[in-house]
């Protein structure tokens, strides 16, 4: 499936501007762009190269090194299942299994309708409330299989 996003170039410029075009801020600029589109559209790369005066290879190296950046489109809702140690010993893998089954995708994949991306993350810092998942920026704690499914179904309803 091909996906096109309409890039708001003015926004991109504003973001670069916010960091004064500082090349040290490359990662943060990509994160801010990611916050809008849920990924870094490859069309943005030449603009970053130009405005920050960095090599194209650096942009790709940074984009692939850091987990928060994706060059592939991700879903509207990014579901992060914490697989950190505290959540692991409290059964995070069972939650991942249940969500994989429900969304019919594997960890790291995005549903065909571009609604959900399912990811494992190493710890979101709410370890006392484990197992934990986050959906975009919102954290849901104290989950088990059933309540994790309910949470994700809730977002499903938000769109339909």
């Amino acid at each position, binding site marked *: 499936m091909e996906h096109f996003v309409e890039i708001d170039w003015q926004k991109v410029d504003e973001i670069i501007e916010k960091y004064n075009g500082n090349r040290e801020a490359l990662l943060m600029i990509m*994160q801010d762009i990611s916050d809008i589109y849920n990924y870094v559209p490859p069309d943005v790369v030449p603009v970053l190269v130009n405005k920050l005066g960095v090599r194209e290879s650096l942009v790709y190296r*940074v984009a692939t090194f850091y*987990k*928060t950046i994706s060059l592939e489109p991700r879903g509207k809702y990014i579901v992060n299942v914490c697989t950190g*140690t505290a959540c692991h010993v409290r059964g995070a893998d069972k939650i991942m299994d249940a969500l994989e089954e429900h969304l019919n995708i594997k960890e790291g994949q995005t549903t065909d309708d571009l609604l959900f991306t399912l990811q494992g993350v190493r710890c*979101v810092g709410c370890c006392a*409330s484990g197992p934990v998942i986050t959906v975009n920026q919102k954290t849901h704690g104290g989950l088990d299989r059933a309540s994790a499914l309910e949470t994700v179904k809730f977002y499903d309803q938000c769109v339909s």
Partner: protein
Amino acid sequence: MVKLENREALKNLRNSLQTKFQESKKKLISLCAGSGCGAYGTTKVHEKLMAELAEQGLENEVEVKLSGCHGFCEKGPIMVIHPEGIFYPQVQEQHIPEIVEHTVKNGELVKSLIFKDPATKKKITHEKDVPFYKLQKRIIFGNNGIIDPTNIQDYLSVGGYAALEKALFDMSPEKIIDEVKESGLRGRGGGGFSTGIKWASCRKHEGERYVICNADEGDPGAYMDRSLLEGNPHSVLEGMIIGAFAIGSNEGYVYVRHEYPLAVKNFSMALESARELGLLGKNILGIGFDFDIFISRGGGAFVCGESTALMASLEGNPGLPRAKYIHTVEKGFRQNPSLLNNVETWANVPVIVNNGADWYASIGTEGSKGTKIFSLVGKVMNTGLVEVPMGTSLRTIIFDIGGGILKKKKFKAVQTGGPSGGCIPEKHLDLGIDFDELTKVGSMMGSGGMIVMDQDTCMVDISRYFIEFLKDESCGQCNPCREGLKQMLDVLNRICEGNGREGDIELLEELGGMLQKFSLCGLGTSAPNPVLSTIRYFRDEYVAHIKDKKCQAGVCKPLFYYEIDPELCNGCTLCAKRCPEEAITGKKKEPHELNQDKCIKCGICYEVCKFNAVAIR
């Protein structure tokens, strides 16, 4: 806010806020807005509370404060009503009308909301009497529950920036460094290096010096740094300004994980208000000292917590560590002398300056001074952040503060030190923990993660889990780590799948030894710890996996099966109802049977049976 031009102005402002705070007779509701409580719905509770207070015409009589993490996150959202200190855990929207009607208006308790200690079943009404808090010593974390982290005046009202004042006006940079040295403070980020010595050595090197705060908090299961940045950002900030003055730096950075949006937000606000007051910026308090701090957000790479990788990342590059022939205190960020300390280390600095090195050194053990915040999580009754003096025993932390193991199960091990730490068995529970003692038993302090494991945790699976984590996080720059971790993971995977071979344990030990000796950075050299420590203490479990093809904890699916014990099963039918595969059959009040061919080993029956009738074989 007016910019503070000199010492007098700061002193006057602080004094007046302190007096106001101490003399205030107003009812104060402190509602935890930390991330943990947030995950249980603080926002809704807060909205409802404000609406209810307005409806009752109480909005001017009662002050509501959204505080940072109180530490007892498991019981969130947490509410404490002052001046009495009434403690309500797990407050939900629907409880608000009762709380306002009874407690706020009439000073009466809402019986159904009072905290019941899960260990003793006793009801406890005041925050200070809750066993989880009672045995703690909260010199770093104590103000978290009292102040609104987004309000600098709150921090001043509990004596904030008094240490900065003392450092700038009554102490020389050398004196500050000596004080930190004598306090015995050791870095809280993992290595445990003497903070004072590090400062002194950075000051010695010429160049544009930088102070940096490591808030990458990579250790999964630990979140004290997050809670400090969110709940008391000014304490970290104050520490950094003092550090900058001591080593002679004009620019600082906080490297914080992108996954911590609230920490970024609260710390940014702290920076703004400190700038407004003139505690950051040009000519701080009129003494001609310039210093400012910037935030840099990391991108979810564990290795970026390592000092040289962190600095590479700050420069906008992939976070690859480098060999440390030259230390970062000499050539670090932008090739200049750089002083990197952990969040909690920075937060200790104002406490030391305020109270003096002698006072600080009187807390803790011979080699480790002060307190440490631990993140007590996993299979323990009370989970949360626990601050105790160094030297407190594991038993006190897990059983007295933590209330023991969940569901009356049996303690098996506690994992400290993060992914590259080790698992400590029951026989060492009386160990007084500090940097050196933990190293002696094959683990380490790390950043203070403490993950409790019970009989249902498989030690082979846990070490497989850590090696998988580290293999994913390895930057791949050097061979021993990149290839060694892959090999170790292959061996562990085959053991967990039931294909373990004679000699695999020895092979793991050999690979581990190689990694320890030849890896380039700390990730690789410490990576084998979880494997080596579990082999050291739980060799039997490895042998059972390899020789008998058994996983007694019921984790490695090919190595066990569930069976219903007809002696214990009373036929309550619960498991049969819950089984997703309809693998369990039987008549009501008669022992049930489990069909192995249908069972997918999801473990639901094992979890739901109240009579321990589902057995792992």
